[in-house]
């Protein structure tokens, strides 16, 4: 017999005998390999789940979602809970013996009443939700919670709106009472939301009174808690907790809940964990709002108020400038030596224009005109061609005490000024990011997922006018 065939023949009983164990082994190995593919080691060394599912994993989730969501939607839309069905069945069975016709009528009325009551309650909830949505400054989409993950280890739930309603990953989910979670995954007609009491969630929060910042996440019991904050005697139960706005998910100032309990961190001595009672009813969610855009939208009245406020502020600035001008004129009258002989006389106040027009030229006195004007003389800089950059300035041609003018000074100055302005703005952005960024202590301006930073500044707050940068192209000099 062929030795290979003999070996196969002798191995056949082995496979038959240990078929069950082999199948178990194959299934376990396949799933462990699948797990290993999904989990990755970050640069910090910690093992974590890839926040973005791979195509295969996403396909499985899509299948599961497609399998379960229609049934859940059906159950939800029929509004026949398992409990109501059971009670209705028992009631029907008992009363049928007494008076079937009467009971049918009563049951029908009861059902109608219950349906009406439920409709009325839902109407009230929706009315409150719509009122909040209208008042709320950001654009939101109302959605219905239709299902959950079914396990304590994953506190996620599903919404009946998906990509078709404009939902995207990492959008904040709120109720008028407080924040609920963030959109974790979006399907064509549904979306998965990670609640704030899940262990893997994270939201930047701030305590209203003590202004202590921290990160909110869930614990094993499904309670949200603020972790990683230093022990502070001032933090007491009952203090309100708000969103800090630095996590790039939740806008600043939304209610999160109230402090329920302050506990010592079991792993770190000087730190405490603050258990938070969530403002939103995370166990019984029905209607929620998804913030789809963080650009503020103002009503006509609000826009008018903003315009009025801007106009008032402009008038105040003009009045302040006029006041300063008056003071400088008085000073110039008392000290005639400070007057610029070359400056044009300011037009006097006329009945039409009670406020004299203030010339916008620099009050700094001009240097005396040169005896022999050449291309290096002041005022001829604009005529210099690009070929004459970096000329050697003879010291003899520069009058003593006059302004040393550098060719292309204005251009260079503009460049430097714009660069500096740019840096200043960048610095302001960075400062803003630091101020608003990072839940608590991280101070990072970017989200943990590496998403591009969205502006977290209060949209109602107008931007401060940038101060004009003093010109530095001329050296300070005395009036001859």
């Amino acid at each position, binding site marked *: 017999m062929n030795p290979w065939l003999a070996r196969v023949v002798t191995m056949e009983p082995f496979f038959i005998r240990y078929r069950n164990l082999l199948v*178990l082994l194959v299934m376990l190995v396949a799933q462990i390999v699948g797990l290993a593919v999904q989990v990755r080691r970050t640069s910090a060394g910690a093992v974590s*789940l890839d926040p973005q599912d791979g195509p295969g994993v996403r396909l499985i*989730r899509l299948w599961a979602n497609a399998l379960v969501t229609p049934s859940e939607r059906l159950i939800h839309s029929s509004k026949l*809970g398992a409990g109501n069905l059971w009670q209705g069945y028992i009631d029907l069975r008992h009363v049928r013996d007494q008076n079937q016709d009467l009971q049918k009528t009563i049951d029908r009325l009861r059902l109608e009443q219950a349906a009406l009551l439920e409709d009325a309650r839902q109407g009230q909830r929706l009315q409150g939700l719509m009122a909040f949505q209208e008042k709320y400054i950001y654009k939101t989409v109302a959605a219905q919670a239709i*299902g959950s993950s*079914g*396990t304590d280890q994953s506190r996620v739930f599903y919404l009946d709106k998906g990509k078709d309603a404009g939902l995207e990953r990492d959008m904040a989910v709120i109720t008028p009472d407080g924040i609920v979670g963030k959109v974790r995954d979006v399907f064509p007609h549904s979306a998965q939301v990670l609640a704030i009491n899940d262990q893997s969630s994270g939201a930047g929060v701030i305590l209203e009174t003590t202004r202590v910042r921290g990160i909110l996440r869930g614990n*094993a019991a*499904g309670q949200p808690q603020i972790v990683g904050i230093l022990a502070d005697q001032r933090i007491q139960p009952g203090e309100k907790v708000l969103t800090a706005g630095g996590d790039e998910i939740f806008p600043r100032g939304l209610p999160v809940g109230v402090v329920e309990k302050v506990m010592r961190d079991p792993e770190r001595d000087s730190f405490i964990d603050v258990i938070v009672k969530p403002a939103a009813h995370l166990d019984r969610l029905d209607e929620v709002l998804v913030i789809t855009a963080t650009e503020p939208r103002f009503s006509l009245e609000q826009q008018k108020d903003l315009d009025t406020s801007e106009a008032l502020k402009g008038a105040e600035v003009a009045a302040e400038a006029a006041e300063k001008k008056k003071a400088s004129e008085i000073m110039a009258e008392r000290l005639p030596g400070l007057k610029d002989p070359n400056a044009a006389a300011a037009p006097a106040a006329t009945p039409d224009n009670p406020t004299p027009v203030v010339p916008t030229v620099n009050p700094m006195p001009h240097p005396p005109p040169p005896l022999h004007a050449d291309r290096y003389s002041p005022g001829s800089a604009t005529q210099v061609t690009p070929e004459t950059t970096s000329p050697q300035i003879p010291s003899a041609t520069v009058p003593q005490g006059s302004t040393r003018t550098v060719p292309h000074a204005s251009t260079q100055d503009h460049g430097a000024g714009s660069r500096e302005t740019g840096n200043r703005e960048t610095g302001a952005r960075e400062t803003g990011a630091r101020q608003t960024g990072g839940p608590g202590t991280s101070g990072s301006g970017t989200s943990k997922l590496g998403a591009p930073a969205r502006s977290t500044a209060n949209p109602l707050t107008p931007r401060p006018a940038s101060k004009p940068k003093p010109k530095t192209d001329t050296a300070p000099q005395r009036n001859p």
Partner: protein
Amino acid sequence: MSVLMANTRRDVEVHRYPILIYALVPLAALVLQAWLPRVLGRYMWFDLPLVITVYFALGRRSPVQGMLLGGALGLFQDALTHNAIGIFGIAKTIAGFIAASAGIRIDVENHTIRLILNFLLSLLCSAIYLFIYRILLDMSLEWNWWTELFKAVGNSIVALILFPQLDRTQIQD
């Protein structure tokens, strides 16, 4: 002890069910497991897919079928969470294998045995879940064994109610 062992013909026979039962009962378990937390809130102390896995594994007395059903239900359950797919899959695969292996040797019609088996397999599944999460994946997870104990008791009670109802759907010879 002889009462507990499967030594009669009736005890070792393989239960057969209509194809609709095979399709609808696991699907209903998945849907209810996902929907009932909205009604029961934090008191969702049972795992219907596990109960169904144990029931069919015990009834069919085939470890391969038990493993396949448990693995499929576990994977779908994983897919409904935001965790890695395979954690529940592995746990329920093992549960299906053990339940079917036990079904060959013991009398699965006995209610006490069903109760104990569900209780033990629930705890085993929880332990496997914890092992995979903390040891195999090296990820942090807070854990409360009391909740798992309540869940095991809940599974046993659900099995006590559900198994006789499902027994009625068997195809009788």
